[in-house]
């Protein structure tokens, strides 16, 4: 019964996204549609980064590196998969969907494994080691791609076809993935695992004294966060019809950090708002030309002065509509969350 209800909810959500896709395509110009896609990718990046930087309190400042691994991975696998899958299934929407999602998952896997490799040594230790190591990782990855001839070196990777990578990324896939990632992150955050991650952020020594396997949890959260950035990278690659090392500079990591700090570190809904904010605000100011980044910086400074904890702080949007004090003891909600 529960399983049936969940399948029904998942189906309804997918249909709603499909309807939204049609509406967006009908209502907006290509330019606006592109911003909407970017906003969706930003949301995935921010929600994933928030899991490690916000909830767990371990600062990664090189997440663009994981996005790059996911982007190149998904692009490369997507290109290599196209021929055998098309040979087996013929061309069509279904074959494309299969190639695209397998490519995205491959990108996520590469990024997740890189996350494990980076996280295992640096998360054993307490403190800011992760920040330093991820900073280095982000640069190393970019320089590696810059020099990898089979991936196009500095020009970037555009597949074997002169017209570039097939543009699989559309509104439906971006938002289906965004909803799935938000649902997974939400369920993870509001669970015993999430409580433990928050405990690590609040006081790692006390968390250890309470039998929390801190290293294992930190590495797991970091790998999930890296894999999420990998998905975003894959969606980005197939939106651009190509990936260039230039797309994943240090500024990209900073952009992601801005998203979660503006929205409120430790809040999933904050990360969503922040992701949209960064995509939209920069575009809205495009007419200002060279003054754009000045105004953007000013805007960030103002936000930090007015609300240093971000728009939402550590709260979630839906908590604001709840009664101030939940009746103690708060038993875990029995309501299943959508998707997942």
């Amino acid at each position: 019964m529960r399983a049936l209800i969940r399948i029904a909810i998942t189906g309804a959500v997918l249909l709603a996204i499909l309807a939204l896709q049609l509406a967006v395509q009908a209502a907006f110009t290509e330019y606006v549609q592109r911003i909407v896609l970017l906003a969706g990718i930003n949301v995935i990046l921010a929600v994933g980064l928030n899991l490690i930087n916000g909830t767990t309190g371990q600062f990664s400042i090189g997440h663009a590196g994981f996005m790059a691994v996911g982007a190149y991975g998904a692009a490369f696998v997507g290109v290599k998969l196209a021929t055998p899958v098309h040979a087996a299934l013929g061309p069509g929407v279904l074959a494309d969907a299969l190639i695209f999602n397998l490519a995205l998952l491959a990108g996520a896997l590469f990024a997740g494994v890189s996350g494990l490799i980076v996280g295992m040594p640096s998360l054993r230790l307490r403190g800011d080691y992760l920040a330093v190591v991820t900073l280095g990782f982000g640069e190393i990855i970019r320089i590696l791609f810059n020099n990898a001839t089979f991936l196009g070196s500095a020009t970037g990777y555009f597949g074997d076809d002169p017209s570039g990578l097939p543009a699989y990324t559309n509104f439906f896939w971006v938002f289906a993935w965004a909803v799935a990632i938000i649902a997974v992150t939400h369920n993870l955050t509001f669970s015993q695992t999430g409580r433990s991650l928050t405990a690590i952020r609040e006081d790692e020594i006390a968390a250890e004294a309470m039998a929390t396997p801190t290293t294992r949890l930190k590495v797991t959260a970091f790998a999930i966060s890296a894999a999420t950035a990998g998905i975003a990278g894959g969606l980005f690659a197939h939106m651009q019809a190509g990936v260039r090392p230039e797309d994943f500079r240090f500024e990209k990591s900073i952009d992601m950090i801005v998203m979660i700090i503006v929205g409120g570190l430790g809040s999933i809904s904050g990360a969503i708002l922040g992701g949209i904010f960064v995509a939209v605000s920069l575009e809205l100011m495009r007419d200002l030309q060279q003054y754009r980044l000045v105004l953007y910086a000013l805007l960030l400074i103002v936000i930090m002065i007015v609300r240093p904890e971000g728009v939402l702080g550590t709260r979630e949007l839906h908590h604001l509509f709840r009664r101030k004090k939940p009746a103690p003891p708060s038993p875990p909600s029995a309501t299943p969350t959508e998707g997942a």
Partner: protein
Amino acid sequence: MSLLELRAVDKIFGGLHAVRGVSFGVEKGSIFGLIGPNGAGKTTLFNVITGVYTPEHGEIRFAGENIAGLKPAVIAERGVARTFQNIRIFRTMTVAENVMVAGHHLHKASIASAVLRTRAYERDETALAKRAHELLEILGLAELAGEVAGSLPYGSQRRLEIARGLMLSPQLLLLDEPAAGMNSQEARTLNEQIRFLRDQLGLTVILVEHNMAVVMNVCETIHVVDHGETIAQGTPAEIKTHPRVLAAYLGEETPEGADLA
């Protein structure tokens, strides 16, 4: 048989011999006081027992096994719970969540089952919340379960640390100055609560405390350290009149009327 036994434990920080050759045994089901002037090495001993520090020499046997050098999380899992002198609660989390963090052994569900919100996950979660509520009730914090822990008054935060430690279902509970910052009424309640933990939950308790009204009242055996070394052990009555203890606390020339009670 002793539940916890320290044998000639040494802890050295650079040139500082913080603990030197300390040995004692704590009987199962007893309330054991560890006292000494500031800087005597009491908290260091707690940190050595709970695995925060590895001792340079000596053995720490808990339930018959040497636990010296094990990681804090492993020692906690084996049944040693503690509180901290400088309160270390998870400030932004609610009171109930603070306690639930220590409930890993009750929560067998995997990360995947948490993501999918399976029945097994929800059953564990309910059991965990129920247990947390019971413990909060024992410590008189049930009404505050939904409050943000950092907003609690000092004394309640100290009791929350005890409730959180109990969530580990420990055999041994180490309390580091639980009465600090409590008024005399709260300290009296604390005495009763400590006895309750021993009598009703069968816990063995080690208490580091400066409030002598608490120590002399609840402890059956008191171990006194100064400058990292043992200077006395005995019943409260013996310790109150022990010349080396009086000297350590009050200086050599104090004649009489040393009011430790």
